[in-house]
């Protein structure tokens, strides 16, 4: 190899932005093809909003609604914005398990031996999972309207979905990290549940927190899922929004700032 060609290829070491977009695009296409090959992988995004909405509205809706003072219909207005917050968390897990599978199947070694930015693989996964989340949210809103949810203004609904997506993309970095450091997809899922359950139920998603013991209320007040649910509620149904909105965005930025560089670092150095 002559010195000239070496210099020419050496200058290619930095990947231009267009290159990153091309790589991310190719990987997004890959993840979308997965769904086409295996439509069952969409079952969770399709069924979870249906099952959870029906369960909560018809099992707990009556009694919690009574306490709220609005009956079952009042509870529908309360819980649907919370469900958007819940699903953003639950579906985020998919990035971790999917990532873990890629490592174990060896396809990740192929990617890592190619001249692409490490971030492309991560961004592609996050993008596809956000698309899945939008699909699930659409299903949720259809079910919600069927059980009696009133969409007051579309702008508020879109803002609530957008906020959930922002928060979800920050949480996905945490699950990506789990996907990189844990041995297999089952461990990622088990660990995910341990993280998810206390956060989801120890929040204002399903019920108002004012009847909870003081120490738990302190937890729920700081729980980003509470602020996300309350912000979504404010945006979709009405009521104060600003404080919860800013706290949720603050959490999103903080989680991303810590988890994203860590995930990329772990991904780079994993052997």
């Amino acid at each position: 190899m002559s010195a000239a060609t070496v210099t020419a290829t050496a200058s290619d070491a930095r990947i231009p932005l267009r290159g990153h977009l091309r790589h991310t695009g190719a990987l997004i296409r890959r993840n979308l093809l997965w769904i086409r090959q295996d439509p069952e992988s969409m079952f969770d995004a399709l069924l979870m909003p249906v099952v959870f909405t029906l369960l909560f509205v018809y099992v707990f809706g009556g009694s919690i609604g009574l306490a709220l003072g609005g009956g079952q219909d009042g509870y529908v207005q309360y819980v649907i914005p919370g469900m958007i917050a819940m699903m953003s968390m639950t579906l985020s897990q998919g990035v971790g398990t999917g990532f873990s599978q890629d490592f174990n199947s060896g396809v990740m070694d192929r990617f890592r031996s190619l001249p692409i930015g490490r971030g492309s693989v991560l961004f592609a996964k996050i993008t596809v999972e956000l698309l899945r989340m939008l699909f699930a949210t659409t299903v949720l809103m259809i079910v919600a309207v069927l059980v009696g949810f009133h969409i007051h203004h579309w702008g508020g609904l879109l803002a609530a979905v957008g906020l959930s997506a922002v928060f979800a993309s920050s949480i996905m970095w945490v699950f990506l990290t789990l996907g990189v450091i844990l041995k297999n997809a089952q461990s990622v899922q088990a660990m995910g549940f341990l993280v998810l359950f206390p956060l989801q139920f120890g929040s204002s998603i399903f019920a108002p927190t004012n009847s909870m013991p003081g120490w738990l209320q302190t937890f729920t007040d700081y729980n980003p899922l509470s602020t996300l649910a309350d912000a979504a509620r404010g945006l979709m149904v009405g009521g104060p929004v600003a404080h919860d909105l800013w706290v949720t965005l603050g959490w999103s930025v903080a989680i991303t700032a810590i988890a994203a560089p860590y995930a990329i670092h772990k991904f780079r150095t994993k052997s």
Partner: protein
Amino acid sequence: MTRIDKNSSGGENAVTVRGMVKHYGETKALDGVDLDVREGTVMGVLGPNGAGKTTLVRILSTLLSPDAGQATVAGYDVLRQPRQLRRVIGLTGQYASVDEKLPGWENLYMIGRLLDLPRKDARARADELLERFSLTDAAKRPASTYSGGMRRRLDLAASMIGRPQVLFLDEPTTGLDPRTRNEVWDEVKAMVGDGVTVLLTTQYMEEAEQLASELTVVDRGKVIAGGGIEELKAKVGGRTLRVRPADPVQLRPLAAALDELGITGLATTTVDADSGTVLVPVLSDEQLTAVVSAVTARGITLSSITTELPSLDEVFLSLTGHRAGAPQDTVPADTREEVAV
């Protein structure tokens, strides 16, 4: 630009490894490995499981960082120029694989795009390679439905998309049946014909003989022998002739006749009564001819005569005095003396 070494013959080294060390806790996967692969040649790295072959390939393809030592591939330093290096290598291995859920064509197209081929070129390259590796009919099926041989061919096609200068094949035929293995060998030979430099790891002497021009034998993270294939084969005792008399009664007379020839390679003439054959180690074609004439002179009718390459175990026994992967002290001293080269 780091260039460690030039080969004495004037051809440049496509791969140069110096003092490569990688430890996993107490296990020394690589314990000071040196290796040179000349451009356009096929280097076979022969060793048992756990010898460090895969660790070496993973370091050379930038998937793993060494604890010590340095290496260049196609002139690029594995540690300092990983991105440039990735552009000129292809990798097919036990680990790096295709996406099982994607159809064959989609796998190749995706890799083409990841290697910055324009859409049109990536499509054309995918079609071309599927054709070349006889996978056109299976182009639209998910790779998970492929047979073992088809999978390996798709792996090979995937590693050829970027027209690599150096190709790493990590145990390309492990787990394949003999017929499929031959298919993969043919493909690899065709790729070598295109001028690619290949570093091949294998557990089989036969595979190394089929594909490689030079051989490096590794054991427990160390290079224990290296050189041309013929040179090493001579060193480890060449081939073994397996001679079967048509009439089993003639087994003993046959053995006696061959024993009289006084051929002593790695071992002496032995009778394998279970299979009704006599085993004769031969080092040269002349010795093979002598065996045939001796049999003819005695008027013994043969039903078959086959040549066998030494197994990995025999290679190791003759090179190191111990079985592949086994600790040295498990072989009694007298055995070692007997097989010393």
